[in-house]
Structures are given as C-alpha cells and as structure tokens.
C-alpha cells in the first residue's frame, strides 16, 4: 500500500491519479473563468473611456484606462437632489444599527439555546430552522401591513428592526457555540458564582469571535445589498444602494458611471469578506444540520 502514498506540500496525499488532478484543474479553470470573467469585465468597463465603451467589436481589455467614470459617478451623485453624503449616512446608519442589534439579540438567544436546557427551547430552534426553509419575500405583503400598522413605513425602523431578528446568523452562532464552547468551562464559572448572563458575556462570547464576525458579515451583506424601496418612500431616507441602482439603470448616457457604480457596490462586500475569510470558514465548519 505504501507505494500508493506520495507527498504534496508536506502532507500525505492518498490515491491521487495524475489524470484526475488534470481533470480537476481543467474543470476548476473552466468554472473559474465562468465566475471570474464577468466580474473582471465589470472592472474593465468601469475603466474604459467613452469611445471604448461603444466600440464594435467590443474589446475585453481596456486600452487607455481612465478614472473618468468614477469622477462622473461622483459628480452625478453630488448633483442629485439629495446630497450624496446623505445616502452614505443612511446606509451606514441602517447597517450599523441592524447589525449590532442582530449580533446582540442573536448571540444572547444562541447562547441560551445552545447551552441552557429549558422547556420550549428545542421547539423554538425547530422554528428557526423552518424559517430557513422559505424565502422571506413570501412574507412581503403581510410585512407591509404590519409595518404600516406600527406606523413604521418610511422610517429607518422598518428596515432596522426586522433585520435584528434575521435567523441565519442566530443559527450559525448557535451551532458554533455548541461545538466550540465546552460545557465544563461554563460549569466552573457558574460554580464560582457567576450569573448566567455574566457567564455568557465574559466566558462564552470571547470564545466565539469567529461566529460574531460571520454574523456581522451576514447581516452586513443583507443590509448593504437591500434597496428596501417598498418600505421607504422619502428620498432622504434611501440607501446608497438605491442611489447606485438609479444610476446603473440610467441607460446609455450613463453607462460609464453605471459601470463604476457597480464596481463600487461590489468591492465593499468583497473586501470585507477577504479580511475575515478564515474566521468565516471556521464558523461554517459547525454549520451542519443534524437529523
């Protein structure tokens, strides 16, 4: 058997045929091109001057890269009726409040569900899992009715408060706590007389930092990408994403600025992900669903 073993990057690798390696590389390259080239093309488009944007046949690479489109985007946003800074403020405010709320409420609930046994706990977690099984747009219409009953339509609350109770973050947090916070540690803290809340805050929370980041990013991504235009009418309360979408859909006259806008929208979440990639993967390791 030992004949079959060969080493690659200092680890034992088993049962690997060269043909298989080649096939896998080939498949990854093809799929990678399918995923990556449109993204690259979006970046290329944003750097093209006007004459290169409308050229037949179109060229993939940019010949004379320019940041004109970005400065166009900036001036378009500045000339808008509502100042550009307001859109940015709205997005940052909504994202920060929603994310913090989700983190706080979510991790508290996750701790209780993962580490305390109480009547109704399992049932509640089953409901959470069930909520992952349907897309939230099903609730869109009744959401609207509820929010208008609260008189929250056209306020920040309409986006922030529902976002605080988003369930995917709670689910990941709970699974991660279950697998990476040992019961014995909590038990000894309790024996030392720490209250349950203190045990959660001082002992458990620092141990699940990767899961925080994942929850923050999950929540950030949802809020960042949400236009949320059905609950918000006032231009002053709309988000950066909304403003950008308006520019992107502005037709040919603005296609350069539109391409620049798309790149701005895409780079922010990607940068956030890259910084936290290893922590997110660590959290996902415990994401599995039993039964």
């Amino acid at each position, binding site marked *: 058997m030992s004949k079959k073993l060969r080493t690659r990057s200092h680890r034992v690798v088993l049962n690997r045929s060269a043909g298989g390696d080649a096939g896998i590389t080939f498949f990854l390259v093809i799929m990678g091109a399918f995923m990556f080239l449109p993204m690259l093309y979006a970046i290329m488009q944003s750097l093209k001057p006007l004459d290169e944007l409308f050229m037949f046949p179109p060229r993939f690479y940019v010949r004379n890269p320019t940041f004109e489109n970005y400065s166009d985007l900036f001036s378009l946003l500045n000339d808008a009726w509502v100042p550009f800074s307001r859109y940015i403020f709205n997005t940052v405010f909504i994202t920060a409040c929603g994310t913090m709320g989700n983190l706080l409420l979510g991790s508290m609930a996750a701790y209780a569900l993962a580490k*305390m046994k109480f009547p109704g706990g399992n049932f509640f977690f089953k409901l959470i899992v069930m909520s992952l099984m349907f897309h939230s*747009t099903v609730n869109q219409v009744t959401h609207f009715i509820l929010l208008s009953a609260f008189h929250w339509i056209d306020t920040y609350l309409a986006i922030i408060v529902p976002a605080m109770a988003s369930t995917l973050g709670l689910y990941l947090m709970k699974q991660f706590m279950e697998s990476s916070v040992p019961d014995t540690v909590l038990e000894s803290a309790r024996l030392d007389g720490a209250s349950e809340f203190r045990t959660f805050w001082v002992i458990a929370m620092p141990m699940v930092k990767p899961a925080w980041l994942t929850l923050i990013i999950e929540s950030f991504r949802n809020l960042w990408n949400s236009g949320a235009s059905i609950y918000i009418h006032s231009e002053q309360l709309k988000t950066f994403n909304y403003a950008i979408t308006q520019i992107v859909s502005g037709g040919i006259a603005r296609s350069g600025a539109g391409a620049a806008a798309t790149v701005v929208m895409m780079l922010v979440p990607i940068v956030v992900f890259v910084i936290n990639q290893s922590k997110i993967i660590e959290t996902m390791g415990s994401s599995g669903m039993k039964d």
Partner: protein
Amino acid sequence: MSQGKHSFGDRVFGAVKRIGAKIKGVFVKKKEEPTVIIDPATGAARPIARDMTRRQYIWREMKKNKVAYMMVGPFMILFFIFTVLPVFLSLALSLTDFNMLQMPHFKGLDNFQRLILDDEIFLLACKNTLIFAAITGPVSYLMALLIAWFINELPPKIRAVVTLIFYAPSISGSVYLIWQTLFSSDSYGWANAILLKMGAISKPILWFENDKYVMGLCIVVALWTSLGTAFLSFIAGLQTIDRSLYEAAAVDGIKNRWQELWYITLPTMRPQLMFGAVLSITQSFGFGAIVTALCGFPSVNYAAHTIMHHLDDYGGQRYEVGYASAIAVILFAIMITCNMVIKKALSKVGQ
C-alpha cells in the same frame, strides 16, 4: 383502477400523508407521560416525583430557567412578529378579499379556486417557478459540492484565492447587471458582437426582450450568483474532516478519490449537506429579484414570470392583498414541502 399493487394515486396520497404527519410532528408534541425525566443540570435520569404532574414539572423548570427566557426573549419576540406572525396572517388573509381599504370579508377558498381555475398567468408562473427551481436548485447544489471538493484538493495557499473567486459573485450585490452588458441588445454586447462577426445573425438579438431566451439567460445568471453560504459551508465541512479517516480507508482498500468521496467524505459531512440543501432550495425559489432586474417587470410575454412576480403584482401593485396572500400561501407550501422531501432523501445518503 389497478389491482393488487398500490396505484399511483395511492402512493401520492400516502406521500402527502407522511409529509403531513412530519409537519404536524414539528408542531405537536406527542402526548406521552414520561416516567423518568432527564435532569438538565446533571444529565442523569430520575423518576418524576409521585405528587407532581408533567405540567407542574414543566412549570417548575420554566421558573428555574427564567434567565434563559430573558435571553431568548427579545429575539423571540421580534422573530414572532416579523416571521411567524406574517405567515399566519397570510393564511388568514388568503381566505378573505382584503384590499387595504375596506374591511375584509370572509370568502372561504374562493381565492384559491380563482388562482387554480381562472388565472392562466398564475399557472404559467407556477410552471416557470418549478422549471427555475428544478434547474437552479440541483445544479447549484452539485456545483457547490463539486467545486468545494475540488478546491479542497488544492494546496492550502491557493485555496483562499480560488474560494474567493467562486464566492464573490454571490456577495457583490447587483453586479449581475454586468450580464446585461454582455448580452446587451445592441451590437456592443459580446454575444451579439460574436454572432454578428461570425455571420450567424444579420441584426442584433434583443436577448432580454425575446421570450425564447429570457428564461435560459436568467437561469445562467442565477447560477452565476448561486455559490453562496451553502458553498462556504461545504468548504468548511471538507476542511474539518479528519485526515486519518482517509488514511485508514486507503489501507482498507479504497482505490480512488471517487470512492473516497462516496464512502467517507459525503457521509461524514452529511450535516453540511443538509444545511446546504436547505439553503439551496430556499435560494432557488428566491431569484425573482434577479429576473426583474434583468428583464423588467413583467417580463416579455410573461416568459420568465415566477410566482414571486405574481405575488408582487397582486400584493405590491394592485393591492389585492387577499388574493396575494393566497399566492404567498401556495408558494410557502411548495417551499416547505420541497425542503421536507429533500431532507428526508438526504438523510439516507451513505446509510
């Protein structure tokens, strides 16, 4: 009717009954009086005190765990208001003719009858939704699994970069609009330019305004954005598998990586497979926004009209809330049923 063997109808009925029982099982606890109770603190089983009924025991446990309820409470309240309540509200409103202005009247199953018998566009939307979900769901799931598995074979340093390349489209918001440029309706789009150059067509094709192409294009774009959380979960799941399992398997006579995948990898990461399946199914029904962004609303000849769009049409534009709720209820039922069936099937993998 066929004799002896179960007819198709019987089997469908049986399946529906089983699913029904399963759903019921989630909500209704079996009414068995336990004689022993597992003490949550020590984990040891002990008999219930004679003078205490089950209800009294639960009440005592609830009082003992006040802190737990305080911790779950805030989230649970919001969750009930914004996720559970809307579902039941939809159910209730689907039986009425509510229109946001007048008091609702009870109409029984009228809305459902109208949907199924009189609304041809709804049936078209159902067909489109099912085609969309039946293609994007399994394909994106298998794609995520295969790619994650292949990435796991790469040296660790490259892994992070490749993961990013595949994951990026799903997190970068509205970047899928670039496909509109690639398939733009004038000759500056790539697809048209290539076809024109080859002489296959004489004038540009209006890709997103042609009912022959919209569905296919939307599916491609949806797949492009589909490697999301499920994909990450697979990547992570593969990394957590103990390598000694593979080494032991090699000694036991596993010959190639496909056998390794089938006999070791998949059974070991079944929890992740389950989680990924739930997310993929949910996602495959939720691509409405992409279709609207690419083809406008409504799409040409309703060629890419999904139930999601129908819901938006009646709920968000015509304010026929009762009717829209009926649509929401049907969509909800389809999604939950799909999830339950797939979960059942997946629990058999490697067993």
